[in-house]
């Protein structure tokens, strides 16, 4: 991939930095979480509520009864997938901020397929719809990767901008020829096209299984395949990877495409399983929260499962705060934000230890 070779050497001149990857240990993540809980506890005190009670409210709101637990798992599902979408390119030391857009690309593709090929049987159409969602997400990710590889563009900016493009396309689909005309959304997908519920009387459907399987596949991919070794080699020391004969450009493109495919699956699951149509704000910032999930999991595919669950608990449980502690639900956002800040701060401290 001679095109990257032109782009790489400048950046390659810096020393390989041992501290950059992987993103710290699980211990760091736990310490960051505790620190965030303490600091947010002070905020809650200032707001005039009891922090212990508030945290109890979050837990019971998220896991207190089967229905709420189901909601939490439903939210965790896309977070697992967007976490993977960030973690795979991050492992190659390229930054995919485009999980949100890749999710939307998947959602758009799967809703259009489900609304168009209605002549197919329900099960084949479901499978086709999901497959197209995955492909569309992968394609959207690959665009970001291609711009990085062939044009030397900064992938952070490119993938971020592509989010807005995907969002705008989604707006067009929602208001355009596929609009439902009653509420702002597309027409509902055919009845049979659905993901079966796997836990009766809750919102948990087959999507959760798909997400867990995806995490397992990514684990095998990263640890047990030549491609995974190439991605890790590229992330740890791109110079050495290139000299050993790897093509950095195709590794980066592939990492973005696979990451995007994961986010695309999240979009398909949200359309087919949860919303049954493309609706505005179908993603509650799942693409961005996925970045935090990938970071707290130290980019380890299997640790992304508990990581996603944790963020789902804070998000869903936060809705219970107003009812039980009379404080705003945005306190849960504060916890998430402080959590990530601590995580990054611990990284910097470790960096300073490493260099002094």
């Amino acid at each position: 991939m001679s095109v990257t070779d032109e782009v790489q050497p400048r950046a390659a001149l810096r020393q390989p930095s041992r501290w950059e990857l992987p993103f710290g240990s699980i211990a760091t993540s736990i310490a960051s979480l505790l620190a965030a809980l303490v600091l947010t506890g002070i905020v809650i005190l200032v707001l005039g509520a009891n922090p212990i009670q508030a945290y109890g409210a979050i837990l019971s709101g998220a896991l207190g009864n089967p229905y709420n637990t189901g909601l939490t798992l439903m939210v965790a599902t896309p977070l697992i997938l967007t976490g993977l979408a960030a973690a795979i390119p991050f492992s190659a030391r390229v930054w995919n901020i485009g999980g949100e857009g890749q999710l939307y690309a998947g959602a758009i593709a799967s809703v259009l397929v489900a609304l168009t090929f209605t002549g197919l049987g329900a099960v084949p159409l479901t499978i086709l719809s999901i497959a197209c969602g995955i492909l569309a997400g992968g394609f959207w990710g690959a665009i970001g990767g291609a711009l990085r590889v062939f044009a030397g563009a900064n992938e952070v900016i490119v993938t971020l901008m592509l989010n807005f493009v995907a969002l705008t396309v989604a707006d067009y689909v929602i208001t355009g020829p596929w609009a439902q005309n009653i509420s702002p959304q597309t027409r509902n997908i055919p009845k049979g096209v659905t993901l079966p519920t796997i836990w009766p009387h809750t919102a948990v459907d087959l999507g959760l299984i798909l997400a867990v399987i995806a995490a397992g596949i990514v684990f095998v991919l990263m640890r047990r395949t030549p491609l995974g070794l190439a991605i890790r080699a590229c992330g740890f020391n791109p110079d050495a990877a290139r000299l050993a004969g790897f093509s950095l450009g195709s590794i980066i493109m592939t990492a973005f495409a696979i990451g995007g495919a994961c986010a695309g699956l999240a979009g398909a699951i949200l359309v087919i399983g949860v919303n049954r149509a493309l609706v505005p704000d179908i993603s509650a910032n799942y693409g961005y929260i996925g970045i935090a999930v990938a970071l707290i999991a130290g980019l380890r595919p299997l640790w992304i499962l508990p990581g996603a669950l944790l963020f789902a608990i804070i998000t869903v449980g936060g809705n219970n705060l107003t009812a039980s502690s009379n404080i705003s639900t945005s306190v849960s956002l504060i916890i998430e934000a402080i959590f990530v800040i601590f995580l990054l701060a611990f990284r910097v401290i470790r960096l300073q230890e490493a260099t002094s």
Partner: protein
Amino acid sequence: MGADVPLEPAVLDDVIQPGPRVSAPEIAMRAIVKRYGTVVADDGVDFDLHPGEIHALLGENGAGKTTLMKILFGMVRPDSGQILVDGDEVQFKSPRDALARRIGMVHQHFMLVPQFTVAENVVLGSKPSWDMNLRRGDIENDVRAVGEKFGIRIDPGQRVATLPIDVQQRVEILKLLYRGATTLILDEPTAALGPAEIEQLFVSLRDLSASGHSVVIITHKLSEVMAIADRVTVLRQGKVVKVAARGSFNAEDLAVAMVGHAIREVTSTPRGSDDEGATLDVRELVVTGDKGHVAVDRVSFGVRAGEIVGVAGVEGNGQVELAQALSGLRRPAAGSLVIGGRDMTSADPRTLHRNGVSIITEDRLRWDLIPDLTVAENLALSSVASGGYARAGLLRRRAMRGAAERLMDEYGIQPPIPLLPAGSLSGGNQQKLVLARELSRNPRVLVVAQPTRGLDVAASEFVHRRLLQLREENCAILLFSLDLAELLALSDRIIVLYRGRIAHQGDVRDLTTTDVARAMAGMSGAA
């Protein structure tokens, strides 16, 4: 106000007149030892610095020059040894202590805040922050006054980011003078400068020397020593090999002292050879360096199968750029590179790799190894890159581990655990790891740089034997080394690079150490 720069006029009056210096050394370092793990950076080094002299500390990379001066500047604590300043024994715990004894150092990479003005940079850190007057006009006047006193003219109001590199260097020097330093240590001060800027720097340094400041220049360039040094101390592998005053050294002596005398330990039997039918054929190659200068200038040579061609030269004469061009890491600006009859002039590393070219660079942690991956993964890396160890899309990890175990045994890599991260091995074992990977591919062409740098005697010997064995197996080997002894021991032919050109070349049987050293020092027409 900070206007009164703490400088004792007495110091200046004392040594106004240059000439033979019989004064006692102002700084004396005695038997300094510093080890990093198993590597000895400085091994019982004595170093004297007299008031008002410009003293060059000469040596190859890794000879221990910078470490020695970092010890003097309080940045590194020695394991043993004494430092005397004006006869008092001192123990510097930090650069602050060194500055208190008027010793200052300009690092190779400047420590300036680009967004600040010259004056702000100069004043920054000179006093506790609560005691600092930051009124712009005041500090600019102070800094201007100090600059004028020492003939260093810079507009103190300019932002550092807008200044060219040589002016930034003057800001660094000014910073030290402002703090009252009378001993200036400059680490490779000319590395980033062009010829005119170097000349100007030397003028400033001579002025400072004339006003009683002593200057240490850390360098590996002979021409600079010849141009400016009153005295020179040559370090090799952590030991002082030569101390001489101006008039009693010449470039040739220094080159020999710096690279060492040839002692042929491993005896290769050189074969006469020429470029005819070369496996690796380089014609009129031009390669530009990082600063856009011509680093390799119309170089032509060939390496035949079963031949080792050594590339000699003082560091920084185009070796790195040439090696990178041959590795596909740097695209040549002109000329051609033909390997086994195929044009590879702008081939990428991948293509070269597939055509049987192996590369071992001088910086194994940077280019050859991935320290975070395991030994087995590192050993398999290039095979995996060309599709090896794969079955049904999965890595054949057991096969990888088996192959790793065999190679680790064959090359004596310790500890023999394939699943350790490569970064946890010692330097010698890392180098064996790289050799094991590249040599086990049975390359047609091997480009290898500094294969024994930092290795102990036993490991070096092992590497040498392997290279000679590879030569027997008809590989064409191009060996870059700063160690002349190594080159003379292994090579069939030697080419000497000086300022990017081949200054001298010949069959190793017809060459003497002196010939090569002279050519390395840029004395054309070696005897």
